[in-house]
């Protein structure tokens, strides 16, 4: 079970003066159960890439396949694909539209053709999963805090029980507590529901802490595809494309350069505590 992109190119406004090649020869496979971080500065092609994963955009060249089938094949059911590959856009709370929280979350499953009763069961399960309690069911989404709204929006996708969950900067604009809440939530869903999570983020600290595999995009191409730990060794190259490693990486490398016996590959606080080789 996987999403696979082969030699994918995507060109915006082809044939006009504004022609822009947003994706260049992308080859990529995301397998079941992975927790992937996707990083790159604004305009690097991240958002265009994730829109290929559920067939929202069609590659100008190349093939996108899901479980071995070309998603733009003649008889392929893309509606089904979109139920299995859930996409949470940036600021998803702007897409809440129902008068009450529970109804908003039930919209997706209802649209899937489930009965009213089943749709409400799915909605309640999804809300429980994101930690939104019964006392919120009949509230207006406008009464909620920013972090709560975002959880409700994510629940709206989870209620459709996707096998793959893609989130475009799900923590943007949240405060530290709200951010940690969302990331811990994703980690838990990934563990409990065994779904694949693809997380677009600007925060290297978060990526270092949560994901197993990190993909770095630059100018429409994949620059690195490896574990965060290995990629952060190229912090100079990352800086050249407007990114950076976590502060811990810089600290450990500075200590190493100053001649101290430390693990210069530590990328998180926990790893640094071990890697500093210092005892009370």
């Amino acid at each position, binding site marked *: 079970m996987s999403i696979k992109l082969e030699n994918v190119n995507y060109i915006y406004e082809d044939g006009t003066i504004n022609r822009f090649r947003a994706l260049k020869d992308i080859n990529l496979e995301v397998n079941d159960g992975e927790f992937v971080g996707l990083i790159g*500065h604004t305009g690097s092609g991240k958002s265009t890439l994730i829109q290929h994963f559920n067939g929202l955009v069609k590659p100008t060249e190349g093939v996108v396949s899901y479980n071995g089938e070309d998603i733009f094949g003649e008889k392929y059911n893309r509606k089904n694909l979109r139920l299995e590959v859930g996409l949470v856009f940036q600021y998803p709370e702007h897409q809440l539209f129902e008068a009450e929280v529970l109804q908003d979350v039930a919209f997706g499953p209802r649209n899937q053709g489930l009965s009213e009763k089943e749709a409400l069961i799915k909605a309640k399960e999804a809300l429980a999963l994101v930690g939104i309690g019964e006392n919120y069911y009949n509230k207006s989404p406008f009464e909620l805090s920013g*972090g709560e709204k975002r959880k409700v929006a994510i629940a709206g996708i989870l209620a459709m029980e996707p096998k793959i969950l893609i989130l475009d900067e799900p923590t943007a604009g949240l405060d530290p507590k709200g951010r940690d809440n969302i990331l811990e939530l994703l980690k838990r869903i990934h563990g409990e529901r065994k779904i694949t999570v693809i997380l677009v983020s600007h925060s290297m600290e978060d990526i270092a802490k949560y994901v197993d595999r990190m993909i770095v995009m630059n100018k429409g191409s994949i620059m690195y595809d490896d574990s965060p730990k290995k990629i952060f060794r190229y912090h100079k190259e990352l800086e050249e494309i407007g*990114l950076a490693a*976590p*502060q811990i990486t810089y600290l450990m490398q500075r*200590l190493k350069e100053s001649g101290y016996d430390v693990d210069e590959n530590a990328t998180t*606080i926990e790893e640094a*505590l071990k890697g500093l080789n*210092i005892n009370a």
Partner: protein
Amino acid sequence: MMSNIIRTKNLIHDYPKCDEDGNVIGSYRALDDVNIEIEQGSFVAVLGHNGSGKSTFAKHLNAILYPTEGCVWVNGYDTSAEEDVWNVRQSAGMVFQNPDNQIIGTVVEEDVAFGPENMGVKTKEIWDRVNYALNAVRMNAYREHSPNKLSGGQKQRVAIAGVVAMRPKCIILDEPTAMLDPVGRKEVISTIKHLNKTEGITVILITHYMDEVIDADRVYVMNNAKVEMQGTPREIFSNVEKLKEIGLDVPQVTELAYELRKRGISMRDGILTIDEFVEEYGRLVK
């Protein structure tokens, strides 16, 4: 003696709570007895989680909101005096989170000219001010561009230029980098620091990002509608436990030093930078 550009005395703000039909059924206290004095020319940061009262506080400095009780003075003007409202707003300009909501012109220079034009500034002086403001945010090269095609960081700098063109003594920025990528964040923060250092404009930066705060002259931490902590960045970040309790972050090196201290290693308090950590580490392993 340095004068205070901003002073609040026992500032209280209550928002009305309404039922479904719009009838007022009570109130919610968003600011509770806030006393703050900000020196002309300083760089002040305000931290706090969502709902702590930061943005409500910011809106008082620009006379968007008026005190329920207590007083706010901006550049000597009482913000609740109706006749001074324009003086208040010319003294203290606001920049908001979303750059797309703040740009109205179809060309960068027109957008920046909007403020002074609205103030009734003479045409020649408007252009002087636009030049000055675009130079101050280093966006002169884009003056004839359409704002639509700019990056988030560039748009936010144009929004700042729009405020600078009104020649305020003070700029209040309410999470100006929350929607930007790392490059955009750096651009905006360096612009803000430049305005403070070389143009002498008082800066009040409301943010969630702790790394933006370490160069501030003074930091205020808001929690539950009150000023819970205040001091220099070093004083504030010496209290990692309390910051965490409030739901805030500290820079990674500060947190690492704190974790080491918890394990009985005698790292000193308030380490803010990599340099300081390296120095302290050297002292310990010697």
